[in-house]
């Protein structure tokens, strides 16, 4: 009996987006925002119903979700204020108005550039949603059960600090 050796037709899935280094995020924000920026990687938190902020999904060219950026309310407010060159304030209103949403979304858009590389599928920001709030199912799933979660504590001059989270499948 002659055996036939099978040939696997399995295709390796494309690699996920790279997780940015602290120094890369610092360089980006140093250029985008006027105040002195400090970025430190910190231990990731478990998602809680008390999270407040914004989530921007990153999708591949085929529309499939690849990763997400999460700005907590403090980072959203403070990065937006710095971008708009508004006076620094210690208070962070948990409500995110249209101007904060627009500016913070653009901050996340700029940071999203760090999740593209020569060797990984191209990704781009696809919207920005408030947390808590109604999220597309895939975004909700990634927020709840990320495979990889990296968090950064980001200090923005006199504006104060906040957290940025990068989620990956």
């Amino acid at each position, binding site marked *: 009996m002659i055996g036939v050796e099978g040939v696997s037709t399995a295709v390796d899935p494309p690699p996920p987006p790279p997780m940015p280094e602290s120094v890369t995020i610092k360089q*980006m*924000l140093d*250029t*985008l925002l006027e105040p002195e920026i400090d970025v430190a990687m910190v231990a990731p938190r478990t998602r809680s119903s008390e999270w407040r902020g914004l989530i921007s999904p990153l999708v591949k060219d085929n529309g499939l979700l690849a990763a997400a950026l999460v700005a907590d309310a403090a980072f959203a407010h403070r990065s*937006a204020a710095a*971008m*708009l060159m508004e006076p620094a304030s210690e208070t962070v209103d948990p409500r995110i108005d249209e*101007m904060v949403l*627009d*500016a913070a*979304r*653009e901050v996340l*858009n*700029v940071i*999203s*550039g760090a999740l*593209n*590389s*020569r060797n990984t599928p*191209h990704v*781009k*920001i696809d919207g920005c949603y408030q947390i808590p709030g109604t999220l597309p199912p895939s975004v909700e799933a990634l927020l709840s059960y990320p495979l990889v979660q990296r968090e950064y504590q980001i200090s923005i001059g006199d504006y104060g600090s906040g957290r940025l989270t990068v989620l990956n499948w």
Partner: protein
Amino acid sequence: MKFLIVDDSKAMRMIVQRTLRQAGHDDAEVVEATDGAEALEIVKTEQPDFILSDWNMPKMDGIDLLKALRAEGIDTGFGVVTSESTPQMQELAKDAGARFVISKPFTAYDLADALEGVA
């Protein structure tokens, strides 16, 4: 000189305008559009000398705007200001006719350098 700044983010339009002034274009007149579709109409009425456009926008993105302009025989100078930073994407923009591609975030020096000779 009249610039058209195209970006769906009001904050980024402000930053581009501010950086334009820091780059030496203090006397520039600036008009704005929130996406490619709006920009296509504004180009016809305002006739800017140069366009600075984001890439990823709703309704019509920057590259489609550029292609639409060229298809209508409008050869206004066009620079892309984008978070798209990979060489492949930059090549796409230049192949479509962009005079330059600047990656966000950018400095006044980056913008001045890019505009030298083209605007």
